């Protein structure tokens, strides 16, 4: 097949238009039906890939709705990489703007959580920070500590109870009414090779967000306390160590420069 025909053949697969010019069928004067077989295979395999990545979201909206939403997404966002395991990073944002799903206000955040979980699953291996390494640091240097994020780390913030809704639809918790309907933040981590979703206490997302951006422990603590007076530093430090959110610490860059000088 000449290259131009191949390109036209591929480009036509995601369009609702007649088959590209030059495509012929051996058993019919019109290639429409035969070409539709290819169209269907592309659409079905990508829909399956999305359903495999967003199983809780599929369960929330139902298979039929999910398939229709996935097909709409595929037409606008065809894969740009042959790696299907990363396909669908844009799907949560698409769902947030998808008119028929507008009433399910928490759907996009549950999808963001699921996307973060698969990213964590496929992230590079790294040993988490050893709590004893922190214990041996001199108290007057603690404030200057900067943490290096574990490759699997994500922070997912939602103004809805997205983590609870995800857990219920992923089979982690029994499905039940949620009487305390409020925003939830969660860490997605992979300590000891298992992806975990760790709910965060008040201002935890702020604290971990600042640390992940390379701010010092003192700066992140200050910012979290400003965001919410209920911020509990020791609780968050325990989560940090237990969840293996970071791999190592380094002192402030200025300090390192000074040490070298």
């Amino acid at each position, binding site marked *: 097949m000449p290259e131009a025909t191949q390109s036209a053949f591929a480009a036509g697969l995601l369009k609702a238009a007649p088959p590209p010019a030059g495509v012929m069928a051996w058993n019919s004067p019109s290639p429409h039906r035969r070409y539709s077989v290819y169209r269907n295979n592309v659409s079905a395999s990508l829909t399956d890939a999305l359903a495999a990545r967003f*199983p809780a979201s599929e369960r929330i909206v139902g298979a039929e709705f999910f398939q229709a939403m996935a097909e709409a997404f595929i037409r606008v966002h065809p894969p740009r990489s042959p790696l299907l395991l990363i396909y669908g990073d844009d799907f949560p944002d698409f769902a947030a703007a998808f008119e028929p799903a507008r009433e399910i206000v928490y759907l996009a955040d549950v999808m963001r959580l699921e996307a973060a979980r698969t990213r964590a699953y496929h992230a590079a291996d790294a040993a988490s920070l050893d709590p004893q390494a922190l214990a041996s640091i001199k108290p007057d240097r603690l*404030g200057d500590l900067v943490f290096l994020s574990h490759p699997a780390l994500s922070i997912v913030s939602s103004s809805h109870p997205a983590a609870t809704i995800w857990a219920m639809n992923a*089979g982690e918790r*029994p499905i039940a009414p949620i009487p305390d309907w409020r925003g939830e933040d969660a860490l997605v981590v992979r300590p000891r090779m298992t992806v975990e979703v760790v709910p965060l206490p008040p201002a935890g997302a702020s604290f971990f967000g600042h640390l992940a951006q390379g701010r010092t422990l*003192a700066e992140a*603590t*200050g910012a979290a306390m400003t965001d919410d007076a209920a911020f509990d530093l020791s609780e968050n*430090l325990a989560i940090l*160590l237990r969840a293996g959110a970071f791999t190592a610490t380094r002192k402030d860059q200025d300090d390192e420069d000074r040490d070298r000088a």
Partner: protein
Amino acid sequence: MKTTIVTLTLAGSLASALAAIATPATAEEAKEKCYGIAMKGQNDCAAGPGTTCAGTSKIDYQQNAFKLVPKGTCLSMKTPDGHGMLEPGMAPA
């Protein structure tokens, strides 16, 4: 003066955080194996995390595939095929 207070807060919080994680409340111990509740391909593995049998169940709620769940919650979990079980059931036909 302000620096000293921050330093003391950080040191104290770190000490209590280290104490909190020293208590052996590992995820595995607080969980139980629950059969018949895992969705297709979402089961955990008896040989431990990271091994190849995790995620190999072929059907939803496969009766001989388990998922680790918080202790005491398994029997209360309801699926379209019935409740969670603490012992494995039949392999799928």
